[in-house]
């Protein structure tokens, strides 16, 4: 299998879906003529033109709302946030209109929209540009939230998201954009709600989402090499729908859990998963569930300090050693 970047994988997903369905269009700031702030859409405007790649003015509430309205008439908008950090100026549209219109109409309508863009820290851009709103968004029934950790997932999940009839928020990661993974050459889809075991193991479960899954994998390597601990790494892929079965299965197998995430810890995804595990698999636990999250403060700018603030493999290893 050829290796391609995470960025390229998303671009291929967008291109393939544009070719498949004339209703698909990508809209966002700088997505067309500028080739995308992070070059995810590079070359697509040249190839597919104004009908499929639309540069929007800097007005997130306006264009996200417009995308939702267009989706009500059967369009398949893929809306880009230059950063998910900018979602808050459009939050009313995303939540009250994107996620609730179907419900409030008693199921008479649906909103088949994808909202995508990077949602991560770790790039020294300060608190305003380092948000990870997956927990906030997943708190709203009606929305699906996807956090791909690698190129193959990013492509397969993006294609699924575009074909899905509900609003799907895809949270990408600027740190991963340039990294390469093996990606199948033939067409494929990855369903939402199916977690992925990145590494089998028997001593402890490292459960994670987004780039934290890669961090967990790295930690699992160190644990094996330096401490002879065989960790299983479960990548959730999507937060909502959530693969509860896979979570419980790994807990029942290893009886120990550390949740790894780049969310801040208070009311985070990890907090939710912890609650589910203690409710559903309490008897299988041999130790308290521990969590490794981004340190609970607004994201710091200073380069060496932000490295400390977000989880790395060493922090995960330390946490694991407390219960293994």
């Amino acid at each position, binding site marked *: 299998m050829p290796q391609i970047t995470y960025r390229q994988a998303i671009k291929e997903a967008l291109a393939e879906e544009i070719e498949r369905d004339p209703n698909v269009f990508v809209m966002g700031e700088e997505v067309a003529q500028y080739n995308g702030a992070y070059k995810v859409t590079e070359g697509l405007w040249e190839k597919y033109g104004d009908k499929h790649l639309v540069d929007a003015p800097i007005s997130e*509430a306006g264009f996200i709302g417009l995308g939702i309205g267009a989706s009500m008439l059967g369009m398949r908008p893929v809306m880009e946030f230059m950063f998910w950090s900018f979602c808050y100026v459009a939050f009313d549209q995303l939540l009250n209109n994107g996620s609730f219109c179907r419900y409030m109409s008693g199921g008479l309508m649906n909103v088949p929209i994808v909202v995508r863009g990077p949602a991560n820290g770790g790039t020294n851009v300060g608190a305003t540009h380092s948000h990870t709103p997956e927990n906030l968004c997943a708190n709203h029934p009606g929305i699906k939230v996807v956090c791909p950790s690698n190129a193959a997932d990013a492509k397969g999940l993006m294609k699924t998201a575009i074909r899905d009839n509900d609003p799907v928020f895809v949270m990408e990661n600027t740190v991963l954009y340039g990294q390469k993974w093996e990606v199948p050459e033939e067409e494929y889809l990855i369903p939402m709600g199916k977690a992925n075991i990145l590494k089998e193991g028997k001593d402890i479960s490292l459960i994670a989402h987004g780039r934290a899954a890669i961090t967990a994998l790295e930690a699992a390597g160190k644990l094996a090499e330096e401490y002879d601990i065989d960790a299983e790494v479960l990548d959730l892929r999507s937060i909502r729908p959530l693969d509860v079965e896979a979570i419980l299965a790994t807990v029942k197998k290893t009886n120990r859990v550390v949740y790894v995430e780049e969310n801040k810890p208070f009311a985070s995804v990890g907090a939710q998963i912890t609650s589910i595990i203690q409710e559903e698999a309490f008897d299988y636990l041999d130790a308290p569930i521990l969590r490794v999250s981004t340190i609970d403060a607004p994201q710091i700018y200073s380069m060496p300090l932000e490295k400390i603030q977000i989880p790395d493999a060493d922090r995960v290893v330390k946490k694991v050693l407390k219960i293994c």
Partner: protein
Amino acid sequence: MTAKKKTKSVKKAERWQDVDVHELAKLEINQRLTDEEKVRLYTDMVRIRRFEGRSLRSYQEGKIGGFLHLYEGQEACAVGTISLLGADDHVITAYRDHGHALAVGMSMNECMAEMYGKHTGCSKGKGGSMHFFAPDKNYWGGHGIVGGQIPLGTGIAFALKRQGKKGCCLAYMGDGAINQGAVHEAYNLAGLWDLPVIFIIENNAYSMGTSQARSSAYPECLAQRAEAYGMDWDTVNGNILYDVRAKTYEAIKRAHEESRPTVLEVFTYRYRGHSVADANHEKYRSKDEILDYKENKDPITLTRKQFIEEGVLTEESAKDIDKAAMEEATASAEFADKSPFPPATSILEDTYWSMDNKGQDPQIDELNQGRFIFEDGGVYDK
């Protein structure tokens, strides 16, 4: 201070005040109405009035929960504008949505039942008074966040244009909504991309208890802000059905033929408080003001007068229409009363398309995981 010289725009803004019904009647768009159609328009206005009256009673009886924003006094706006729409035209509005719902052809029964929170309501009792929907009638709600529906309406227009359809979207808002940022973002997109949308400001002079003068800079005319976004605009006498039709017709033509947006400011008046909970509405406006509107500017009275003059209605037939509307409204309250509440299981339904359409999509069962029902024992749904 020297008196301000009136600009061209101010003159245009004030144009709505001196419309002449007889002149308007001669316009082709009004001329072409058959007697039957005129009776229908009148009937629809009366039906809204009576429906609102009946829902107020139901609210006072404790049958309707939450907020109730009544449309009495504004009937000519919904009926006049919507009377011009064709199969490819769409409607979206705010929470004061009963008038538009009835005007697009939704039944009193489904609307009343919705407010009663019944399973037979248009949204199965999930939306309530502020959230009526009927996509089959191109009616996209019913939205509770002030100004939030305006980007959606702009998106509907975007989709129509992109799909190569000839339709347009009427997106209604109040005079208070005009100060929301999302409205201006949508204005910019509509002007920038030549979208076939008509923004209709139903200016009933107040946003809750705040008069327009206390909420908007340059309050003489809200529609004129359209100029900043390269859009056409006009002002409308919302008490004169023929004026509503005439100005809306021009805007629809512009949307259909040139794919250009328009802002219309319809001067109208609400008789009731902002919502029924707004019992003190005579504190921010005078009894005399309300009385003046009811006695001299009432859209239903003025329309009736005109239609009687034209020989389309008689005092008798008008009374019959009123009686029938009252009976229909009473029947809708009885229908709502008798209807069942939705079953508890419906709390979870209609959240995700993919959950509601199990079996139609190969991935559904997986998608269904991770849904939480806080029932006894707090288990999740598998």
